[in-house]
């Protein structure tokens, strides 16, 4: 639990010697509470206070990083609901494979190469969960010829794990999973290879006992498997763990959670729940782009800071090398809006000038309703980006949703022809071909 400035002050020497650069210990304590200075700036703090302060500064949910050539982080979350602040670390999406699968290399290569673009961002999967139903080390070698992403190793067999993990030196893998009956050798192995360890139990009580015992052995990076017989039980446990960690400051459950929608009745639905409700790692049964893409988009949506819409820079964008007589299209600087239009036009191969107005990152209708996308603002953009100097044909196409603006815009820009385009961007290419000649 974060300490207040006063609580921190009580742990300082209270001599006001000023060596930290602040006039009083209290002033320094306030800065510490706001996390604007480092404790090390005071040379006189006792070891006891140092320990207490370090503990209080630790995040309520431990940050666990799985790492290979790329890395994926989970934990460090501070709120129950995204509107309270934001959710920070997007849950990693892992594809489950079997070590014995004769097509292993091909399957991993295909999933590894997957890349899909959503509003200008490239999304990929985060790693693989390898079920050790055969020679694990051999499978790891095969996987490492085609993918360098982080791995989850699914077995309790310490001999298999030891040889597999030896191949992954310098990486942080996740071992799945230790239970009360068998945690000791697995914890030792995780320590030896600097791996994280997933822990599993039937109740939160047992789970908390287990993490404490493992922590006592000196292993810090753990991930919780909450089990649960159906969606409601999993949701209850996941909510309880999150609340216990961030509200009750229960360190024993302050770890990220791993979910296995691959075992659920409806994988897509279970994965969506896991993403929305606090999972740190999500294991999917196989590589299916028709499910992966919506899940990646959902993850992006849930983890986007609700206070800041994603925006693009206002300006004039050239699509498919436009010429002076190419079409001039007008839109707003909300990322989703810009990319809906830009991707559509780009895909059609038709050249166009895309004028992106500063609408404070709002969609066409939202901006229009908020008064941020009106004739005056559009005219201002056309003038300030000096569109007239680039084109020979003074004609602007408005989004169909704001057809009502055309009259006013004609008044603002008397020497321009104003055209109303279709409502949805999907219909733009056809409109450009048929109506813009």
């Amino acid at each position, binding site marked *: 639990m974060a300490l207040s400035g006063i609580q921190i002050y009580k742990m300082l020497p209270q001599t006001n010697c000023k060596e930290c650069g602040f006039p009083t210990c209290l002033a320094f304590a306030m800065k510490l509470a706001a996390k604007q200075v480092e404790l090390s700036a005071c040379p006189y703090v006792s070891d006891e206070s140092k320990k207490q302060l370090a503990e209080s500064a630790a995040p309520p949910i431990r940050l666990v990083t799985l790492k290979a050539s790329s890395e994926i982080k989970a934990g460090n979350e501070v709120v129950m609901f995204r*509107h309270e602040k934001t959710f920070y670390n997007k849950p990693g999406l892992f594809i489950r494979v079997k070590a014995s699968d004769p097509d292993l290399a091909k399957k991993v290569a295909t999933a590894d190469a997957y890349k*899909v*673009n959503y509003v200008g961002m490239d999304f990929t999967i985060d790693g693989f969960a390898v079920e050790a139903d055969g020679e694990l080390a051999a499978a790891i070698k095969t996987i490492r010829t085609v993918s360098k992403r982080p791995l989850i190793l699914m077995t309790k067999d310490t001999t298999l794990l030891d040889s597999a993990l030896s191949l992954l030196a310098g990486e942080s893998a996740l071992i799945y999973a230790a239970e009360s009956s068998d945690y000791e050798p697995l914890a030792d192995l995780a320590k030896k290879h600097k791996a994280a360890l997933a822990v599993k139990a039937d109740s939160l009580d047992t789970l908390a006992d287990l993490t404490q015992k493992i922590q006592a052995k000196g292993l810090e990076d753990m991930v919780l498997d909450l089990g649960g017989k159906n969606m409601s039980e999993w*949701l209850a446990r996941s909510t309880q763990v999150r609340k216990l960690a961030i509200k009750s400051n229960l360190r024993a459950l302050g770890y990220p959670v791993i979910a296995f929608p691959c075992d659920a009745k409806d994988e897509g639905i279970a994965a969506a729940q896991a993403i929305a409700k606090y999972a740190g790692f999500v294991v999917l049964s196989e590589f299916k*782009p028709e499910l992966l893409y919506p899940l990646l988009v*959902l993850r992006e*949506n849930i983890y986007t800071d*609700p206070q800041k819409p994603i925006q693009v820079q206002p300006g004039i964008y050239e699509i498919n090398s436009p010429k002076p007589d190419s079409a001039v299209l007008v839109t707003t600087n909300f990322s989703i809006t810009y990319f809906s239009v830009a991707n559509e036009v780009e895909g059609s191969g038709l050249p166009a000038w895309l004028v992106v107005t500063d609408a404070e990152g709002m969609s066409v209708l939202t901006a229009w309703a908020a008064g941020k996308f009106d004739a005056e603002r559009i005219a201002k953009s056309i003038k300030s980006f000096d569109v007239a100097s680039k084109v020979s044909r003074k004609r602007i196409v408005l989004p169909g949703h704001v057809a009502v603006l055309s009259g006013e815009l004609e008044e603002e820009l008397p020497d321009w022809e104003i055209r109303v385009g279709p409502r949805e961007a999907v219909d733009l290419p056809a409109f450009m071909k048929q109506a813009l000649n």
Partner: protein
Amino acid sequence: MPIEIPKDKWTGSIRAVTIGATSAEGGTRAKSITVGGQTSMPYLHYEAPMPNKPVIAIEIKSRKPDDWSPLLADAWGEAMADPAQWAKKAEEAGADLIVVALTLADSPEDAVRVIKSVLSGTGLPLIVWGPGQAEKDNELLVPISEATKGEKIVLGICEDKNYRTIVATAMANGHLVQARTPMDVNLSKQLNILISDMGMSKDRILMDPTTGALGYGIEYGYSVMERLRLAALQGDAMTQLPMIVTPGFEAWKTKESKVGEGVPEGWGDWKARAINWETLTAIALVESGADVVVLRHPESVKRVKSAIEELVAV
């Protein structure tokens, strides 16, 4: 290590709202549907039991739509040309309620005829939406309201610019209303106040916070719903209404659902992706507190229904 599970103790609760009336209740429905009544955040059964589960409405149109995805046309086939048939198929597909969306092409006589035929084609309670233009909405909804007195239909969609006529006719004829505001907690409260100030009982209002599709603004709707539900549980009377959302309408507008060809390879199989788009949009909203979920594709209905069963299981 015995762990004490932290429980929120809320002072507020959501009103229970009943849609549709059986013959004993003054209507003709085979059964009525009650939503709401919660006293905790969604599906946290360890805090409080959930008195009524969320329900699914299937959206049909008064005349065959020409701008719906071919995937939807495949799913419903010939029935799309006959609202009564369509409603019947929707009932077979697992709907708890039917939404009939009217169009600008309907005359008041057409509209009344369609609603009557749907009422005889299905025993489910109805929600009726005007075409979305204030004058036309009023022109169609008033005669429907009068012709179906006592059926406890939900009439919509009331917005801040157009709610008076719809609310007045709903009150006069024993119906309910759907109150829509654009993703804003305060606007929701305000519209609910305006509607109840007219004398409408709060047990007859469904609140529609507006939603966006996956990838197209769902994050705003998701958070507004969570905030509305939290406000209600904290005791704010003007947010203590069940929520209705329209993921079917939103998801089937997107390119991801509409278009099968010339799209990125990474989008995968068209049909599966389109249904996932609708289903996952719906699930996110179910998780954030939706009470009535309006869908379009029968496969999504099946999946969301089965998820709700799992979520309400204790």
